[in-house]
C-alpha cells in the first residue's frame, strides 16, 4: 500500500488555498497544507482540512440512474445519454431552443464550465445557461461593470498585508473565507486599522478598531453618509477624481442629503463613529475594502455595490497596491464559472452575447450556428417551467432545492419540466427529483483549473480515479454532443485541449497555458500580450470603461420590514464549518459535530421575552413558509434580529426567504425578510423538512 501526494486546490471557497491530496489505494486519506502556495502559505480552514471526507463518502453515485415508476434504476451511459439526447432534440423541435437549458456549477472546473456554455450555445442553440452566481454575486458583476467596467476583485489577497486600513462590509471572512479573515487579523496585529460594517457582531467585529453595527439593509444610507462626511471635510482625493472619475459633482450634491444625524437615525450607528470611519478610510495611504453577500443579497444589491464603488473612487483607494474593491466570492470557482460565460448574457471573458460580432466570432471558431435569442437565468428557467414554456434542464453539481430562495417555487418549476437531468456526486435533494441522474467525477478525480476570487487561475490534478462509471462533466457533455449529432464539435481528449481552445477565444486568458500555470503557481487574469505574467492589481492607469463612473444611489427600504404579524428581522448566514448545501462538508463527522444544536440564532434577551429556553424547538414562519428548528442563544445578533445558516436541509432557510429581486440582476433578497417565531411544546423535537423519499418529488 503505497502513498502518493498530488497538488490541488481546496474545493470549497473562493480563496483557493493550496492542498496536497494524499492518496493510497485509490482513496484520499488526508490533505496536507502547502507552505509554498502563494495564498494559503501552509494554512487551511476547517473545511479545507476535512476535504477527504467530502470526496470519499460512501454514498457516491457510481452509475447512471433513470427514474422508472418513481424509482431509480441503473442504466448504461449509452442508454442514459441517448435518452437525454432524444428528449432534448424533441423539445427543441417542438418548442424551440428556448425550452431547454443548462445550469452549470461554480464548483466545477473552468474546463467543465466552458464546455457547458459551449454545449448550450452551439449544440442546443440557446443562451439559457446559468450557474449559482445569481444567489451570490451577480450584483457585483452588474454594479462594478457599470462603474468600472469589470466585476472582479480589483486587487490581490496579499494586498491585505499591504493596507493600513481595512474596511470589511457585509462579509464574515473569518468564517467564510477563513484564510483571508486570518490575513486581516494578522494585518490588524501588525498595526493596520480595521473597520467592520455588519449588523452581526462577527469575529472580526470583535477585534476591530471600529464596528459599525448598522441596522440590517441600511448599507446605502451608511455609505452615502460616509461620502457626505468625506466631501464636507474635504477628505476626498481630488487629484484622483479629476484624473480618473466622472460624475463627482452630481454625487456630491446627491449625498448632501445624507447628513450625519439622518444617517445615524436610519442606520443606528453613532455619528461620531461614522466620522471616524470616514476619516480613517479616506485618509489612509492604502485602504483595502472587502465586501460580501451582506452587500449583494438585497433588492438593492446592485445599488449597494455601486455605493461601495463610489466610496472607493472618491477616496482614490483603487488601482494601487493595498487598496481596491474586493468582493469575496463564495464558491471555489464562481469566478471561473462567470469568466467562462456560464451566464445567459456573456460568452467567455465577458464577451457580450448580444453583440453580433461576438456571436459570429464564436460561430466561426466552432463552425456551427450559435444561439441568437437572449437567454434565461436559472430563476427565469424555473419561472418559465411553471408556465409550461420550459421543458428540459441539465443541472451540474448544484442543489437549488436546498440553496435557492423560495424553494417551493423552485421545486414546482423542476417538477413541471418534462426532463430533469442532474449530474452529481451524490444523491442530493435536487437529484432525488430528477428523471436521470449521472455520476460525476469530483475535483480530486480530474485535471483542470479553478479561478479564485483574486482572478488566479490554478491547476488541479488527478489524485484518484472516479468511482465506478463516474465521468468528468466536460466528458459527459462531449459525449452528449455526439449523441445530439455533433461528433466533432466537442471532441476533446484532455482537459488541456479544452483550456487551450478557451484561451484562443479570449483575450484575458490568451497568455495562459497549463505549463505556464504550473510554472507560475497560477496566473491572475488578464494575462495577455500586455500583461504576460498576469495582473496582481487591476485598473492601475485606467478603467475598462475609461473613467470610473460615480453614480448616485438612494437608500431604499428592504422589500419586507417587520410588522405586527411578522415582528422579527430575519437574515441568513453561513457557518464556518459548512459550505453550500453541505453535501460535502456534512460528510465529515468532525464538521457535522460542530453544528450547533439550534440553527436559529437569537439574542438571549429576545428569547427571555418569549420565555424560550436555549435549544428549545420553535416554528419560524414568514409569508412564504415555515420550518421547525431549535434556537441557539447568540450574542452575535442584536435584539430583534434572527439569523439562520442556510446549509441544512433539515431546516432550509429558503423556505422562509424572500424572492423579491434586485431588478437589475434578479438577485433575490436573501439577506433579509420578516418572520415570526412560535415555541414548540418544551419536549417536542422539531420536525425535519427533508424530502421523504426519492419517489415523491416534493412533500410540503
Amino acid at each position, binding site marked *: 500500500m*503505497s502513498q502518493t501526494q498530488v497538488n490541488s486546490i481546496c474545493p470549497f471557497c473562493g480563496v483557493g488555498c493550496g492542498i496536497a491530496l494524499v492518496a493510497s489505494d485509490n482513496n484520499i486519506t488526508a490533505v496536507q497544507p502547502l507552505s509554498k*502556495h502563494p495564498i494559503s502559505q501552509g494554512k487551511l480552514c476547517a473545511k479545507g482540512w476535512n476535504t477527504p471526507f467530502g470526496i470519499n463518502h*460512501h454514498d457516491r453515485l457510481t452509475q447512471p440512474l433513470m427514474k422508472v415508476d418513481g424509482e431509480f434504476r441503473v442504466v448504461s451511459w449509452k442508454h442514459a445519454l441517448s435518452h437525454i439526447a432524444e428528449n432534448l432534440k424533441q423539445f427543441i423541435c417542438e418548442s424551440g431552443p428556448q425550452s431547454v437549458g443548462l445550469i452549470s456549477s461554480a464548483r466545477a472546473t473552468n474546463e467543465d464550465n466552458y464546455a457547458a456554455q459551449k454545449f448550450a450555445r452551439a449544440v442546443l442553440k440557446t443562451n439559457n445557461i446559468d450557474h449559482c452566481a445569481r444567489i451570490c454575486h451577480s450584483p457585483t458583476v452588474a454594479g462594478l461593470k457599470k462603474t468600472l467596467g469589470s466585476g472582479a476583485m480589483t486587487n490581490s489577497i496579499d494586498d491585505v498585508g499591504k493596507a493600513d486600513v481595512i474596511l470589511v462590509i457585509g462579509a464574515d471572512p473569518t468564517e467564510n473565507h477563513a484564510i483571508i479573515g486570518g490575513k486581516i487579523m494578522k494585518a490588524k496585529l501588525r498595526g493596520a486599522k480595521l473597520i467592520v460594517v455588519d449588523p452581526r457582531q462577527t469575529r472580526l467585529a470583535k477585534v476591530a478598531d471600529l464596528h459599525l453595527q448598522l441596522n440590517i439593509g441600511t448599507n446605502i444610507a451608511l455609505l452615502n453618509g460616509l461620502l457626505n462626511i468625506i466631501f464636507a471635510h474635504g477628505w476626498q482625493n481630488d487629484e484622483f477624481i479629476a484624473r480618473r472619475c466622472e460624475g463627482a459633482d452630481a454625487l456630491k450634491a446627491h449625498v448632501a442629503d445624507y447628513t450625519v444625524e439622518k444617517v445615524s437615525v436610519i442606520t443606528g450607528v453613532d455619528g461620531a463613529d461614522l466620522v471616524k470611519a470616514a476619516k480613517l478610510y479616506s485618509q489612509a495611504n492604502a485602504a483595502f475594502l472587502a465586501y460580501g453577500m451582506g452587500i449583494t443579497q438585497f433588492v438593492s444589491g446592485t445599488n449597494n455595490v455601486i455605493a461601495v464603488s463610489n466610496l472607493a473612487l472618491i477616496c482614490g483607494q483603487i488601482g494601487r497596491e493595498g487598496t481596491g474593491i474586493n468582493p469575496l466570492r463564495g464558491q471555489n470557482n464562481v469566478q471561473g464559472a462567470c469568466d467562462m460565460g456560464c451566464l445567459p448574457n456573456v460568452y467567455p471573458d465577458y464577451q457580450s452575447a448580444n453583440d453580433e460580432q461576438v456571436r459570429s466570432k464564436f460561430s466561426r471558431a466552432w463552425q456551427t450556428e450559435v444561439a441568437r435569442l437572449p437567454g434565461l437565468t436559472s430563476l427565469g428557467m424555473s419561472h418559465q417551467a411553471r408556465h409550461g414554456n420550459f421543458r428540459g434542464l441539465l443541472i451540474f453539481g448544484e442543489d437549488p432545492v436546498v440553496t435557492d430562495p423560495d424553494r417551493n417555487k423552485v421545486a414546482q418549476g423542476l417538477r413541471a419540466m418534462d426532463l430533469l437531468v442532474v449530474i452529481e456526486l451524490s444523491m442530493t435533494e435536487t437529484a432525488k427529483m430528477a428523471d436521470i441522474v449521472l455520476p460525476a467525477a469530483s475535483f480530486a478525480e480530474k485535471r483542470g483549473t479553478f479561478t479564485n476570487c483574486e482572478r488566479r487561475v490554478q491547476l488541479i490534478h488527478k489524485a484518484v480515479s472516479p468511482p465506478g462509471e463516474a465521468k468528468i462533466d466536460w466528458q459527459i457533455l462531449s459525449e452528449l454532443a455526439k449523441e445530439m449529432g455533433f461528433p466533432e464539435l466537442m471532441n476533446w481528449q484532455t482537459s488541456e485541449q479544452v483550456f487551450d481552445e478557451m484561451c484562443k477565444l479570449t483575450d484575458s486568458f490568451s497568455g495562459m497555458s497549463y505549463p505556464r500555470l504550473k510554472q507560475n503557481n497560477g496566473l491572475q487574469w488578464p494575462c495577455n500580450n500586455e500583461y504576460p505574467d498576469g495582473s496582481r492589481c487591476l485598473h492601475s492607469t485606467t478603467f475598462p470603461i475609461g473613467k470610473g463612473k460615480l453614480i448616485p444611489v438612494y437608500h431604499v427600504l428592504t422589500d419586507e420590514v417587520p410588522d405586527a404579524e411578522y415582528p422579527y428581522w430575519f437574515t441568513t448566514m453561513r457557518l464556518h464549518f459548512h459550505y453550500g448545501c453541505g453535501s460535502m462538508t456534512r460528510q465529515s463527522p468532525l464538521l457535522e459535530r460542530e*453544528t450547533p444544536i439550534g440553527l436559529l440564532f437569537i439574542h438571549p434577551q429576545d428569547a427571555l421575552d418569549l420565555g424560550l429556553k436555549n435549544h428549545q424547538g420553535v416554528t419560524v414562519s414568514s409569508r412564504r413558509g415555515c420550518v421547525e428548528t431549535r434556537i441557539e442563544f447568540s450574542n452575535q445578533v442584536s435584539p430583534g434580529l434572527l439569523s439562520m445558516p442556510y446549509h441544512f436541509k433539515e431546516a432550509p432557510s429558503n423556505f422562509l426567504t424572500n424572492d423579491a429581486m434586485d431588478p437589475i440582476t434578479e438577485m433575490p433578497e436573501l439577506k433579509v425578510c420578516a418572520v415570526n417565531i412560535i415555541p414548540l411544546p418544551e419536549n417536542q423535537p422539531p420536525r425535519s423538512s427533508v424530502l421523504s423519499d426519492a419517489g415523491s418529488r416534493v412533500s410540503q
Partner: protein
Amino acid sequence: MIERYNIVNNRYLLKDLGVLKHHLAKYYSVVQIQKDADGEKLWTEQFGDKIEPLFGHNHLPLTSPKGFLFAEKEVLYKFDGETFKTILPQVQPKVMFGVQACDLSAIAYQDKFFEHDPYYQKRRENILLVGIDCESPCVTGFCVQVDAGPHVKDNTADLVLSRLNVDDANGSSEWLVIAATEKGINSIKGMTLDKADNKHLKLRTKLLEKVRSEFVDYSYISNAIEYLNNNSVPAQLWEELSVRCLGCSGCTNLCPTCSCYTTYDVVEQQPEKPVSISREVKLEVTKSETIRCWDSCLFEGFQKEASGHNPSQKAAQRVERFWFHKFSDEYLPEFQRYGCVGCGRCEQTCPGTIGVHSVMKRIDQQCCS
C-alpha cells in the same frame, strides 16, 4: 514499555549516503523528504531511487511524519452481521530516511502514548528510523528550548546520520553513522563501513554546539513555560487569544505529538444494491466498519455531550487546553518531557496567528510586565 533501544553504539564513517540508502532499499520501502517543483517539502514514499535525499539543511517539512505511524484515517474493525473483526493495517517494512531530531523526539513521545495501541504498534514495528542531525536552525523551530534537538537525541532513532564536514569544492562530505539499536545494527549488516572513533564523536559534539549557538534568542518561550506552570496567565489573555482561533484543527493536525482521534461508522454498501437513495442509515444494515480519524481539541464539539453540556464550551478553554497539554509539568512524570518538541509547525499553519511563537510571546510580554 517495549525495550526498543538497547544502547549499542556502533559508529561508522560513510562518504556517500546514497550507498546506505540503496542498501536499505533492498529490505525496506523508503520514505523520505522530497521537494516538489515549488520547493514544497513533503514526506513521500518513493520507489526506486529517482530522487536524491535532501540532507543537511533547513528541510523540516510542514507536515510531520506522524501519519505514517498514527494514520489520519484507518479502519479499526468491521462488523459482519454477527461479530466484530479487528482490521490491523497491512504494512511492509519502511525506512524513514532522514528524520529530524524534533520529529524523532515526537515519535518517542508517541511511542509511549500509544504503547498499548495495536494499530500504532503494528505500523511502528515495521519502521526503521534513520535520524539526521540538523546543521542549521529552521525557520520557526526552537528545539533547543524544549530539549528535542538540533541533534538527534539519544534513544530516539535506530540509525543516526551526522555530517562531519562538507567539501563544497567537490560536493562530497563525510558522514558519521551511529547504529543506536539492535535494529539499526542489523539494518546495515552486509555493508562495508569504516569505523569511526572518539575524535569523530567529539566533532559531532562540537558541531552541535555551533548549531545551538546559531538559534536566535527564544527565551520568551522558556519564560512563558514558567508562567504557564505557575498558573499566572490570566483568563483574560486566553479570552483575547482565543477570539483568533478559527477552530481549523491545523495546529493539532500538524503537531507531531497530538494524538486525539474520534471514531465514526460507515455502512458497507451491499453489492446487490449499488445505490443508496436514502441517506438514512437503516438498521437492518448488517455490515459496517468503524474508522478512526484525527480529531482536534480545538473543535467546539470535541467535548460536547449529548445533553448539550460542554465542559470546554469556551474557545479560551480549548486554546488553553492545547498549551496545557504541550507545556504542563504535570505530564513530565509520564513522558519525561514536554509535549512540545519545538518544531514550530503550529505557528506556520495557524490562520489566526496564535501558534507557539505568537502565544508564548504574548504570555511573556503580558506576564513579565
